[in-house]
C-alpha cells in the first residue's frame, strides 16, 4: 500500500441472503484507488458496481475480505467525513431552499453558523449555481438539482466523492455539459472520485481508471488505466485513442457477459 492509496479492497466479497437463496453480489474484488483518481465502475445491472460503492460508503457490510478507506474501516472513514455521496436522484428536500439543502450535512455535523454560510456560498459557486441559493428545488431544472446535490456532497470538504449514476436520469445534452463541468470541478478540487455508470462514453470521457464489472457473480473483469490527458475537451471523444479505449471497455463487457446476453 503506497502512501497515495485511498481505497484498497482485498478479496472482497458480499453475499446477500435472500428468500431464493444466497446472491453473490461481489466476489474476489481486488482494487486500489489512488489519491486524485477518477475511477468509473461500469457494467450491466447486477454486476455489483453500486454495491461496491455502497461498501466503500459503509452502507453495506462485506461478508468476506478486507477494505480500507483512508487506511481505516469504511465505518470509521464515514465518521471522519471521508466521503460525500451523490445518489441517482438529487433527493433535495422540497421544504428547504437550495442553500438550506446544502446546509443539511453541515447542520448535522455541527458546523458553526458563519462557517455554514461561507461554505454554502463557496460550493454553490463551484457547481455554477451562485445566485440560486434562495430558490426552492421545484424552481430548478433536473440538471440544476443534480448540481445542487453535488454541491451538498462537497460542502463538508470530504476528499472522496462517491457518485452512483448521478446523471442517469438526465438527457444526453445536459449530461454532456455536466460531465464537462464535473471534470473541471475534479481538476480544481483534486478530489478522488468513484463514479458508477452504465454509459461507455461517459466512463471513458471522465475516468483515469475504468473498472469493468460483470454479473453472476458480481466481479471485476478488467481494469483500464486511461492514457487520455487530464485536459479533456468534449471533442476528445472523436479521437482514435478515445475510440480504442471505448472498444476495450466494450470487449470487456462482452467477455464478462458470457453467453447469456
Amino acid at each position, binding site marked *: 500500500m503506497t502512501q497515495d492509496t485511498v481505497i484498497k479492497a482485498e478479496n472482497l466479497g458480499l453475499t446477500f441472503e435472500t428468500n431464493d437463496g444466497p446472491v453473490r453480489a461481489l466476489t474476489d474484488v481486488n482494487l486500489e484507488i489512488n489519491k486524485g483518481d477518477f475511477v468509473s465502475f461500469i457494467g450491466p445491472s447486477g454486476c455489483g458496481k453500486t454495491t461496491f460503492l455502497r461498501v466503500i*460508503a459503509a452502507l453495506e457490510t462485506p461478508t468476506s475480505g478486507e477494505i480500507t478507506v483512508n487506511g481505516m474501516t469504511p465505518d470509521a472513514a464515514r*465518521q471522519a467525513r471521508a*466521503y460525500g455521496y451523490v*445518489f441517482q*436522484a438529487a*433527493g433535495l428536500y*422540497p*421544504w428547504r431552499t437550495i442553500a438550506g439543502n446544502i446546509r443539511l450535512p453541515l447542520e448535522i*455535523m455541527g458546523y458553526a453558523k458563519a462557517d455554514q454560510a461561507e461554505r454554502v456560498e463557496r460550493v454553490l459557486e463551484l457547481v455554477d449555481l451562485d445566485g440560486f441559493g434562495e430558490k*426552492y428545488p421545484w424552481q430548478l431544472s433536473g440538471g440544476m438539482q443534480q448540481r445542487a446535490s453535488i454541491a451538498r456532497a462537497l460542502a463538508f470538504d470530504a476528499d472522496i466523492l462517491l457518485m452512483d449514476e448521478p446523471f442517469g436520469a438526465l438527457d444526453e445534452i445536459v449530461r454532456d455539459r455536466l460531465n464537462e463541468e464535473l471534470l473541471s470541478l475534479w481538476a480544481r478540487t483534486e478530489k478522488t472520485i468513484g463514479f458508477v455508470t452504465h454509459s461507455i462514453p461517459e466512463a471513458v470521457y471522465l475516468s483515469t481508471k475504468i473498472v469493468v464489472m460483470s454479473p453472476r457473480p458480481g466481479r471485476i473483469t478488467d481494469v483500464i488505466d486511461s492514457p487520455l490527458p487530464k485536459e479533456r475537451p468534449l471533442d476528445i471523444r472523436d479521437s482514435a485513442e478515445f475510440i480504442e479505449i471505448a472498444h476495450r471497455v466494450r470487449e470487456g463487457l462482452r467477455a464478462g457477459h458470457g453467453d447469456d446476453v
Partner: protein
Amino acid sequence: MLTRVLPVFVVVAAITGLWYLACIPMNAHQSVTDLERAGEVVVPGGAAERRDMAGVSLVLQNPAAVQAAFGQERPRLPAPHQVGAEIWETTANKRITSKRSLVYHGWITLSATLLGFAIGTVAGIALAVGIVHVRAMDMSVMPWAIASQTIPILAIAPMIIVVLNSVGVQGLVPKAMISAYLSFFPVVVGMVKGLRSPDRMQLDLLTTYSATRAQTLWKLRLPASMPYLFTSLKIGIAASLVGAIVGELPTGAAGGLGARLLAGSYYGQTIQIWAALFWAAILAATLVGLIGLIQRVTLNRMGMAA
C-alpha cells in the same frame, strides 16, 4: 364559480325538498289531532283510533293535515324553516352569556374539543414516534390502539367521567379526555405512515452524514410526514367534537351542545335538538375547513402541495 356552487346548491335543494316532504306523514298524527281540537271534522275521529295508522294514509284521508305539518310546536320532525328560525333565534338574538344561547353552549363544547384535540394530537404524535423508533412499541402499541377504538365510546365515556370525578377532576378535563381518546387514533395511524414515508435513498443520505436518529427525525421524518399529519388532523378534530358532545351526555352537564341535545330530548323539544345538531355540524365543518386552510398554506410553503 357557478360550476362549483351549482351542484352543491342542487343537492341542498333536493335534501330540503325531501325533508319538507317527510314532515307531512311524520307529523300527520299531531296535525290531525290539532285539526280535531280546532273543531274540524277528521277521519277517523278520536286519537286512539288513529294511533296505529300509518302517517301516509292519515294524510290521504285528511288533506288539510298537509298544511298543519309545518308549524307545530313539538313536531316529530321539525320543518327546515323552523330549525333555521330556532338557530337564528338562539345564536343571534340571545346574549352569548345566556343559557339559551347556542353560542354559549357551542363554546363550552368547543373548548373541550380543542383541549382534547391538542392532547390527542400530542399523544398521537408521541406514540407514532415511539412506534417508528422502538421495535417493542411497534409490535405492542398498535393492536392496543386499534382495540381502544373498538370499544363503544358511549360505554366508556361515563366510566371516564365517573373515575375522573372520583379523583376530583370535573368540568372541562373529563370531556377533553374523551375527545383525546377518539382523536389520538387517526393521528397515530397517519403519523406512523408519514414518519416512514422517506425512501431508502433519503435515509441512506443521512447515514452517509452519520446523522443520529434524533437528527433524522427532526430534519427528515417529521417534515416529510406533514401531508399525512394534516389528513389525520382533519379526521381527528371531527372525532374530537363527537367526543366532547358524547362526554356531555352522561354527566347531565349544565352546558354544552350535548347537554342541549339531552335537555331537548327530555322535554320533547325536537326543534331545539335539531338546532343543536346543526350547530354541531356547522362547528365541525368549520373546524375541518380551518385545518384544511392551514394545511394548504403550510404545504404550499413547504413545497409539498399535493
